[in-house]
């Protein structure tokens, strides 16, 4: 059972299995949802299931030559398109019209050895408008025995004309337990050791994304949280010195600033959740609950919401190259006003 290799994502899995059993597979799918929650994995498993020589077209077996070749990406009827950087120094990777045309050229033939040709477009939102528009016709009426799977973490960046041509399946953030299982396996295979207490923390703070849970500096940035909570608690017009001191220490770390502000955002969010007493599972910093409760008791909900806004605005400003020091000072002034 190869769909069982995908942990979590019960709903998408259920939908896919059912369509496979009924044999009425749409010509194009759009898998969307946060990054790193198993969209591509599911697409590959679907390709395997459709072409499996043993248990297809209901599920893959992972053993037959067809499944093996798809896993190794050497199957002649399996196409995986990923955005490429046009030059090593280019900022963003994009999917260009040439790649799409090349794919269209290959899709006109009947399958080489499998049952169904499967084309997966990973990060479909990276298609530039020319590429997306050239793809419309193929997406609407693909050649026979072909299914196309678009994968996007942000479907709103896709052309609406693309989205309307696909059947959409939403992928949800993974549960903490699932993340823990996945990263335990990955860490064990990589380094051979997995420290349970760190795993717990990583899983808690992953926001349901495997890649985030695996990030090197996920634990590092979490060390800033103590300072940040202190700031939220104490900053006021009387204690501006705290804010200035913090800015002096952290304002220069421009490469880290976004993730530090993310932490701040999460802390404010958690405090607000505690304040309203709703859905304790949404809290990401469970290990600091006792500190957060203090903050929640001290501040009003409106103040917390204002702070959240302020941090968010600062993040956007920094993304567009605003002066870090001024932006941060401005943010803390907003904090003071809110408090």
């Amino acid at each position: 059972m190869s769909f069982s290799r995908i942990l979590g994502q019960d709903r998408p899995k259920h939908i896919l299995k059912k369509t496979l059993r009924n044999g009425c597979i749409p010509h194009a799918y759009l898998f969307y949802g946060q990054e790193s929650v198993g969209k591509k994995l599911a697409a590959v498993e679907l390709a395997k299931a459709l072409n499996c020589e043993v248990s297809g077209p209901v599920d893959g077996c992972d053993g037959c030559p067809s499944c093996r070749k798809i896993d190794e990406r050497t199957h002649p009827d399996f196409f995986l398109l990923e955005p490429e950087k046009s030059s090593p120094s280019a900022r963003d990777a994009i999917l260009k019209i040439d790649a799409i045309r090349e794919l269209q050229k290959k899709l006109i033939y009947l399958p080489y050895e499998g049952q169904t040709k499967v084309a997966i477009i990973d990060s479909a939102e990276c298609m530039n408008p020319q590429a997306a528009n050239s793809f419309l016709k193929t997406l609407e009426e693909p050649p026979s025995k072909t299914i196309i799977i678009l994968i996007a973490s942000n479907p709103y960046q896709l052309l609406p004309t693309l989205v309307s041509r696909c059947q959409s399946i939403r992928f949800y953030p993974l549960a903490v337990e699932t993340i823990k299982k996945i990263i335990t396996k990955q860490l064990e295979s990589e380094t051979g050791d997995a420290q349970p207490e760190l795993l717990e923390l990583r899983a808690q703070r992953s926001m349901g994304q495997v890649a985030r849970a695996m990030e090197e500096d996920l634990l590092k940035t979490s060390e800033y949280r103590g300072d940040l909570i202190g700031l939220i608690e104490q900053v006021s017009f009387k204690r501006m010195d705290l804010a200035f001191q913090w800015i002096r220490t952290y304002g220069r770390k421009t490469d880290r600033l976004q993730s530090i502000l993310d932490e701040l955002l999460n802390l404010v969010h958690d405090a607000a959740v505690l304040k309203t007493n709703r859905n304790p599972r949404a809290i990401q910093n469970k290990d600091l609950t006792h500190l957060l409760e203090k903050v929640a008791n001290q501040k009003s909900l409106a103040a917390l919401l204002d702070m959240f806004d302020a941090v968010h605005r600062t993040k956007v400003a920094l993304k567009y190259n605003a002066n870090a020091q001024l932006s941060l000072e401005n943010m803390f002034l907003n904090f003071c006003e809110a408090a």
Partner: protein
Amino acid sequence: MEVRIDKDTFLNGVQKVQGIVETKGAMPILSHLLITTEKDRIGIQATDLEIGAKGYYAANVISSGEVTLNARKLFDILRELPSEEVHMIREDNHWITLKCGKSKFRLPGMPAQDFPPFPDFSQDSLIQFSSKLLKEMIRKTFFALSPDETRQALNGLLLEKENGKVNMVGTDGHRLAVIQRKLEKSAKGDKQSYLIPKKAVAELLKLIEDEESSFSFSSKNNHLAFIHGDQVIVSRKIDGKFPNYQQVIPSDNKIQVQVDRDVLQHALKRVALLADEKSKMVRFDIQSGNITLAADTTELGAAREEVAVSYSGKEVSIGLNAKYVLDVLSVIDDEEIVLNLKDQNSSCLITSTGDKEYQSIVMPMRL
């Protein structure tokens, strides 16, 4: 694996599949060719997953086995070697040693089991062509194929078999060429039609060397095959429907203008020099006794030439793409051709006096 083979035989075999091998691409193994051994011959095969070719060549097989070798490098090496016997030995780790005379080469191979399996093709011949016939049919229709690779159905030649006759059709939407020939031996049967991808046709042309041998055509599942003695070309079928070309062939073009092919060809070439670069339009003014070919553009200038024809009737003018007409004129073998017209907005059918089974259509342009 160990093989001794004549260098020229080997080179010939490697050269035949060069056109198919992919030099760049996602799968590195496709830039390699696979060499297999049989009792007293070796098989050389290559594929780009769209078309594949396989040929057998006599060799002294000392021990059996399979190897893959970079096709380009092998070809370059063989070309430079003296005409002696080549000695090929596989080492344990997929490396291959080639020895010839005093030269020695070591080349890295890839695991032979990773090479895409040769598609299953049928030996049952559906249509048997003589080389001469196949070559003629391809030559007279191939030029009309669409160069646009995304228009899948127009990117191949249509091969139809019906009641002992075989048709071949090529079109790009602006022009069409259709040729019909009788088959020497063929059972009567239902109409069958196949689309042969452009690339496969191009490779097939390379394989036709002499005019004596024969080719048989077969089809199985998703693949078509052309078998020629020890050589096979297999192509994946194109997924698409060829347009109904019978509908396009005009039947009531009453105006028939008979003209000497050679004279028209040369005159048209001259006039086309000043035709609009993009549309290549030349105006054909047809009167009793002659055609006036005219090209008139503001940037390039004007050209005009008269060609004598046997025609008497009303005057008619039509604009045609000179390149399309020249393509047709260059493949017709007869001395005299006939332009069949209706009016300036209807398509022009070009036939030859000696061969009623070859028809070519060129769409007109607005004057």
